[in-house]
């Protein structure tokens, strides 16, 4: 798959100071995907996201409104986790979901550092639901429904480079207004959905102690060790088995109940296997 380089990939910049909390983006999203009316359920998080609400407005201190949605990470944990590749980074950049592949293990929900993917807990045939950055609309050359709907341009669409530059420009122009940080620029590997804000946004992350390492990179050493471990273990076991078998054969001449010839030939053939592995 041919991916856009990180800078050229599509992105969304949300300026928390501009948002008036009208929830037009939420409505636009729901209408675009024909999402059901949402009733808060026992299993809902209090952040307003659900399988029928792919974006939500969270009210924070000082009358600020923060729009929550999938961050479309540059190195998404969900994509690395999904065993069947139902979650993928599309060529354009958005992290999209293929319900035909999904088997419902919900590992993606467990690993997302922002707690984004939601589940149809009330359905007999449930799917994982999350923002797909209006992937179908992007393909038609349109911008996402939410950024289009925003009446005050608090959330805007563009390429990641453009928006990062714009974010830094705004912070520089009004350093007193903003916290000097672009959320999503590089924490947890960076994301395609960026925020600038006058309030602390670390509440969007699960847990407080995050750094810039992406989640998939944490499991990489273990995953790389898989085949070597297998080969080493098979080799060691075959070797040890062979040596011990030899010793025992020398020591005892009778009363072995398993046919030794067979077992020793089996051992040597397995050594061949493990070398290939």
């Amino acid at each position, binding site marked *: 798959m041919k991916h856009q380089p990180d800078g050229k990939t599509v992105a969304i910049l949300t300026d928390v100071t501009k948002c*008036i909390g*009208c929830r037009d983006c939420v409505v636009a999203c729901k*209408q675009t995907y*024909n999402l059901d*009316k949402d*009733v*808060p*359920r026992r*299993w809902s*998080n*209090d952040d307003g996201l659900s399988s029928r609400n792919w974006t939500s407005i969270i009210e924070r201190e000082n*009358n600020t409104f923060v729009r929550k949605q999938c961050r479309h990470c540059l190195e998404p944990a969900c994509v*690395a*986790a*999904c*065993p*069947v*590749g*139902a979650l993928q980074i599309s060529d354009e950049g958005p992290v999209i979901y293929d319900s035909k592949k*999904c*088997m*419902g*293990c*919900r*590992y993606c929900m*467990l*690993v997302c550092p922002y*707690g984004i993917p939601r589940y149809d*807990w*009330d359905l007999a*045939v*449930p*799917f994982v639901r999350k923002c797909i950055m209006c992937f179908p609309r992007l393909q038609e050359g349109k911008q996402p429904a939410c950024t289009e709907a925003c*009446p*005050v341009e608090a959330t805007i669409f563009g390429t990641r480079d453009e928006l990062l530059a714009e974010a830094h420009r705004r912070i520089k122009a009004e350093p007193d207004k903003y916290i000097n940080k672009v959320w999503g620029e590089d924490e947890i590997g960076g994301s395609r959905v960026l925020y600038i804000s006058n309030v602390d946004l670390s509440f969007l*992350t*699960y*847990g407080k102690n*995050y750094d810039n390492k992406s989640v*998939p990179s*944490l*499991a990489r*050493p*273990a*995953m790389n*060790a*898989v085949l070597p471990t*297998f080969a080493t*273990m*098979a080799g060691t076991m*075959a070797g*040890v*088995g062979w040596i*011990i*078998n030899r010793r025992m054969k020398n020591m005892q001449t009778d009363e072995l109940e398993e*046919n030794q010839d*067979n077992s020793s030939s*089996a*051992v040597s*053939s397995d050594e061949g296997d493990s070398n290939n592995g």
Partner: protein
Amino acid sequence: MDRVHRLKSVLWTIIGIAAAVGMTRYIFGLGATTNLTDRVPWGLWIGFDVMGGVALAAGGFVVTAIYYIFRREELHPIVKPAVLTAFLGYLAVAFGLLFDLGLPWNIWHMIIFWNPHSPLFEVGWCVMLYLAVLLLEFSPVPLESFSAWAKIRSFLIKWKLVLVILGISLSTLHQSSLGSLFLLTPYKLHPFWYTPILPILFFISAVYLGLMMASWESLFTTHVYRREKETSLIAHLVGAARWVILLYVIVRFGDLFVRGQLGSLAEINYYTVMFGLEITIVAIVPFILTMIPKVRDSNPGQWFIASFGVFGVVFNRTVTGGLAHLVQDGASRYIPAWTEFIVSAGVVSFMAILFLFFVEHFKVWEQRAADPSVDPEKLPEFDKASNASIGTPLLAGWTKNSLIFISAAAVGLMFMSGKKVASQGIDSTPVSQARGCEVLMVDGNLDGYGVKFPHAEHITRIGSEPEKCTVCHHMNLPGDSQTECSNCHSEMYQSVDAFRHDWHASSDGANISCFKCHDKGKPKDVDSAVECSECHQDLIPAGATIKVDQYNAPGYVDALHIACIRCHETYIDTVANRKIDECSSCHKGAITPENKKFAEIVMTKVKAGKFQITPEIKKDRE
């Protein structure tokens, strides 16, 4: 005899109730049968059935390694039962997944859709491969009874060592990759558990558990079937296990030390208690007990040691799998529902039944049971009073057990509620229709903060001709001419579907075929549907100025603000005393702080041009 039969009755009862829960899960979804939430997507079924099932199967690879590779012949009596348990453990995993997966019929997707970066992918493949290996490893035992298969059997025995080595290597990967699963959850798993060496810790504890599990099985079956006790063998096994757990504890604490977490163990909170509990159960108690020779060599002592060891590791898996996950502020902790417990118990019971079936019908043990009545090769039974044959014990047992199963399932179903799980939190706010006659009180949610709308006065001003009504009344339900706003805009703040699809499609309703509305050959969705007015000519009154172009009706608040503000923007001059940018000009009630905030939002929308009239309408008015 009665020990086995009593045990089986209990097992079948549990399986029966679990079956009832299973049915409910497939009809009403996971929400109805579990306490899982969007925050806690993995619960007991993964933590116990899957993580525990795999762990319990560790006996297989540990015992085969010691016996076939290190050639410790004294283990001979427990090799076959250990392989059998491993096989059943993995079967339990697959079985548990049938309940836990949202789309279990897609479980085979892992074979064709690959994502080798995923730890779960690795786990899945190891389960599949190892299950196959175990099947081949164990099948010589049942095949012994079928002479037609003798060739295959001898072939399998010939290649046994290869299978064993494959099995050991797969197990190594698999036990450790269960730990790797949680490497991707650095922000959820508490730092006492989250460490880069999780896979190593999981592997060491799996070896420990393997030894403990083999001992436990031997204790259990010798008790149930009154076989001769294998006391000295078990003393060996648990003796070896204690050094493994010592290594585990050293690595675990060493890791905590390196990561600088040792200090935080001194505090008392949920996580330190969990940690302490875990270490006590898994390590301290069994270790101390095994150090006392008297306890180690006695049957009750071994029961204690093995049970603690097994439970300890399973507990560790469950804790890592969910109990030690951090909760966000204000969220409540996950406690499994009773339905979850019963399904887990059901899966275990089913595996136990299978285990009993195998040991009763095939030569899993070299040594026969001491009690002849539980020997598989028994004679038909006779009723004591009438001397009539009640069939072979097998058939009699089946009759009784299926009765137990069916009654238990029936009782279980009684406790299942067919309803979808009730909602909690803020409910939707239904809208009540405007009251009054010449002056309407428009107050959808009846909070008193409504608007007095002089309907009659508007008619006088605009005109009473039918085409004037359509300035506001833009849609009537079929066969109606004065449909209320609240009829479609029936939710205060949310948009709702104004189209009743279920009624149109239902045989009790309109009973029309799909293709009356949807184009053939296209997905049946909004895009392929015709417009309502194709059939309902009277739906949109002629000359309506507000366009209806979607099946969703906006929330009541939005709809009415749009309707009023649009018009008044145009006629602002003619209604001088109505200033649309002042809430109080329409809303005469007291403005509470909450209302004020809400009002500000609405006003910002107005100012940002969101509620503006479209140019055509403006032209229309001029």
